[in-house]
């Protein structure tokens, strides 16, 4: 096996103030004892966000994780906008979670999920850039003996206007780093932005086309061994016994170890040897009390919740019961949404090295701080003896954010082989059967229509899993999981987009032993289907056009209406579609963005669906990099339509049945519709990008399917009905 020093070691990792002594030991000059914080290459840190090298290279620190969504580039644009540096000289690096602890969270939250990367850190990263700019200009002014007010900065060059003298950021960085950072530097008015809002090229493309990009699965460390694991196939079960002697003589096998109560791993020279041996290893499981649970028993439990008296109420006005009882026309429908696996292209993995004095972990993670917490807990060492290095992710989609089960496992393995780095890589089969699944949910919707076809009452009852109960119970509110209601809230980032005189939206919580997780879009995926398909059902029952029916309920929701109108206009709603082509609409507010879609499909043989085109509009308030937003929209539709047509994780004997892409399908290019994006930022707020649009693809296609066939499908995925995407 070839080992080489991983790329990660060549990066200039951040070192803190405490390490300045080490800088001195390396011969770096720090005159007058000023406490300049230095990057590992000795370049001065202007502040936590910005390091400037003597050659004018600007290193921008990014705390959030890049997993394809473009946040690395977007966040760098935001710092650069205020820093007034030369974009062509920008490079980025990740601070480590250990340094974050040592520096009292100087970079804020590392968590990269919930479409928060930009919308939750735009202010302080811009402030970081602005503060650094003021310090650099001040340093130049001091050197020239002129007032800073006579100097300006652009493209990494500082100019003293009266004299015409110029200098560069690289030349004044040392002096700037010694200045006391000014407080409350004013940020630019959005109308003055030059870089935010521009489709500049991503910073991370080149290594991804040459094979040079190192992902967690690719990591190599000197002396490293490779491991793969089987955890009990039934969630909550344990290892009873295993016969290590049957495989210890197989090629390359070094160790066969139990991992916690529920896992067994083989550690070998190579991963293929480890997997071959693990497949041959006899393991007996204590499957525990969940071994009889099946999809049918779970569905029955949820079904009982649809009519249960007790439910958590989230959004309510008027008297829905009375309105429904008095209505001349009542419409009712029951929908069901399945468990789904994230199926990131890169299976879960982590590399750990443990000694009694130090535990280090290299891991592709959406949340370095959570990976760090898992490392501290599993190692049993104090935080100052632990470190986590973030490696590029081969997809995240929520699987690698709140959950670091693979980190815990890697550390528990490494602890049994002190001093030897061990890379744990799951097989696809392990990944498919040990996910943190999209929550399972049913919904019963009841609508009341008056004689003129106006919607006078709506009851939306959800019945199913609560992610927060399983993952973050501290965020429940009197037992209620508000996250369940994404897109159905009375107001805020997930506000319901209709005014209905009598309304009740509630949740009968029904939890299962299958662990739920945050899956791109989280609960908007099913909520958008439930709500927007039912709105179509109501419009049909009222004999009204689906767009007009919605519009009447949206007068008080102008931003929702604006995106809906935008897709209807672009798609030509109300005008004849091409022969055989049918349209469907959907809209939602999610993660603070307003999104809408109009799908155009045709259906052959009653069950072969061709999605020709989807027009999508999004108002995310501000649009930092429109080209990347377009890619997120198109990509989210691939994720969402794969889920709609092909993806379900079924439960039998307490375990997940699907094991790989042959029985858990994902879209191919042949099925890809033409996606037309309308990016319409209206300003004044910051909405998310990576997730919101995912939720409108499925209901728009389903509504078009009804238009084409007269059939409503209310349980998913569509393959269960023989309906396929061509």
């Amino acid at each position, binding site marked *: 096996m070839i080992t080489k020093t991983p790329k990660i070691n060549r990066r200039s990792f951040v070192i803190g103030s405490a390490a300045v002594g080490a800088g001195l030991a390396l011969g770096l000059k720090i005159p007058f004892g000023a406490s300049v914080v230095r990057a590992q290459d000795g370049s001065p840190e202007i502040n936590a966000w910005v390091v400037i090298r003597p050659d004018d290279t600007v290193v921008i620190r990014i705390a959030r994780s890049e997993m394809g969504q473009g946040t690395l580039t977007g966040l760098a644009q935001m710092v650069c906008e205020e820093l007034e540096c030369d974009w062509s000289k920008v490079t980025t690096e990740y601070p480590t979670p250990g340094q974050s602890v040592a520096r009292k969270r100087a970079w804020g939250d590392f968590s990269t999920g919930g479409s928060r990367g930009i919308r939750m850190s735009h202010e302080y990263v811009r402030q970081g850039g602005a503060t650094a700019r003021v310090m650099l200009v001040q340093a130049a002014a001091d050197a020239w003996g002129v007032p800073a007010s006579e100097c300006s900065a652009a493209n990494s060059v500082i100019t003293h206007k009266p004299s015409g003298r110029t200098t560069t950021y690289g030349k004044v960085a040392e002096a700037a780093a010694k200045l006391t950072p000014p407080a409350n530097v004013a940020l630019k008015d959005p109308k003055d932005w030059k870089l935010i809002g521009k489709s500049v090229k991503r910073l991370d*493309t080149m290594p991804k086309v040459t094979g040079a990009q190192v992902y967690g699965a690719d990591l190599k460390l000197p002396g490293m061994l490779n491991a793969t694991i089987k955890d009990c196939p039934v969630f909550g079960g344990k290892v009873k016994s295993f016969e290590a002697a049957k495989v210890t003589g197989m090629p390359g096998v070094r160790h066969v170890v139990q991992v916690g109560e529920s896992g067994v791993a083989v550690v070998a020279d190579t991963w293929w040897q480890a997997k071959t041996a693990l497949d041959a290893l006899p393991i007996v499981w204590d499957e525990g009390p969940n071994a009889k649970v099946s999809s049918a028993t779970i569905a029955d439990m949820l079904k009982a919740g649809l009519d249960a008296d007790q439910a958590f109420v989230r959004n309510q006005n008027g008297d829905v019961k009375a309105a429904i009882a008095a209505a001349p026309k009542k419409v009712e429908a029951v929908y069901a949404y399945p468990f789904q696996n994230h199926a990131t*292209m*890169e299976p879960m993995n982590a590399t750990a090295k443990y000694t009694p004095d130090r535990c280090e972990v290299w891991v592709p993670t959406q949340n370095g701080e959570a990976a760090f917490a898992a490392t501290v807990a599993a190692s049993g060492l104090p935080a100052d003896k632990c470190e986590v290095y973030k490696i590029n*992710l*081969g997809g995240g989609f929520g699987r690698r954010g709140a959950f670091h089960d693979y980190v815990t496992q890697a550390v528990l393995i490494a602890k049994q082989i002190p001093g030897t780095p061990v890379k744990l890589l799951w097989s*696809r089969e392990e990944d498919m059967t040990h996910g943190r699944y999209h929550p399972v949910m049913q919904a019963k919707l009841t609508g009341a229509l008056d004689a003129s076809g106006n919607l006078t009452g709506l009851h939306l009852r959800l019945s199913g899993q609560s992610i927060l109960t399983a993952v973050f119970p501290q965020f429940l509110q009197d037992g209620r999981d508000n996250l369940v209601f994404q897109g159905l809230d009375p107001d805020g980032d997930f506000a319901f987009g209709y005014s209905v005189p009598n309304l009740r939206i509630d949740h009968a919580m029904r939890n299962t032993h299958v662990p739920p997780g945050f899956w791109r879009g989280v609960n908007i995926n099913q909520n958008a289907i439930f709500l927007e398909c039912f709105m179509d059902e109501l419009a049909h029952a009222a004999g009204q056009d689906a767009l007009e029916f919605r519009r009447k309920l949206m007068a008080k929701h102008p931003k929702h209406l604006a995106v809906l109108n935008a897709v209807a206009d672009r798609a030509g709603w109300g005008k004849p579609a091409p022969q055989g082509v049918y349209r469907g609409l959907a809209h939602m507010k999610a993660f603070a963005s307003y999104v809408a879609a109009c799908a155009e499909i045709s259906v052959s043989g009653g069950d072969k669906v061709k999605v020709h085109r989807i027009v999508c509009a999004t108002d995310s308030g501000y649009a930092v990099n429109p080209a990347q937003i377009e890619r997120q929209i198109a990509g989210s539709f*691939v994720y969402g339509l794969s889920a709609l047509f092909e993806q379900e994780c079924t439960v039998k004997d307490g375990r997940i049945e699907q094991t790989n*892409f042959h029985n858990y399908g994902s879209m191919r290019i042949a099925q890809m519709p033409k996606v037309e994006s309308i990016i319409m930022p209206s300003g004044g707020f910051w909405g998310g990008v990576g997730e919101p649009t995912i939720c409108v693809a499925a209901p728009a296609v389903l509504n078009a399917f009804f238009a084409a066939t007269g059939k409503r499908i209310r349980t998913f995925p569509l393959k269960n009905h023989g309906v396929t995407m061509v």
Partner: protein
Amino acid sequence: MARLTINGKTHEVNVSPTTPLLWAIREQVGLTGTKYGCGIAQCGSCTVHIDGAAVRSCIVPVAAAEGKKITTIEGLASGGTLHKVQKAWVDHEVPQCGYCQAGMIMAVAALLKDKPKPTDADINAGITNICRCGTFQQVREAIHAAAKA
């Protein structure tokens, strides 16, 4: 022991003959641009060229690749010049997470060798790799751009 010719260089690899070529490439030769995604030839992340044809290396035993000309993503560019597919990928900013893209690029490079001016139907039939980020719209644009280059 098997003798593999990869990107013009000969490597002696000490593995059992049934070891999938993917793992010999990644673990013995040390070229990690070729990815493990599924291990059952479903996703295409492990696509390499064997004698110019795109194959999914996760199901090809090392023994079957001996004596053949293997090209991985690391060997696609010639000298310092990117292959036209890689160039189109950069110009159109195709990759998101990028994990599947090496396999995607290798599949497309082989397609363009067979069909220098592919139609959309050719692309649909010839490119069946999975991309969970969903880059297909850019993939299609970039294929047409590479065909014109």
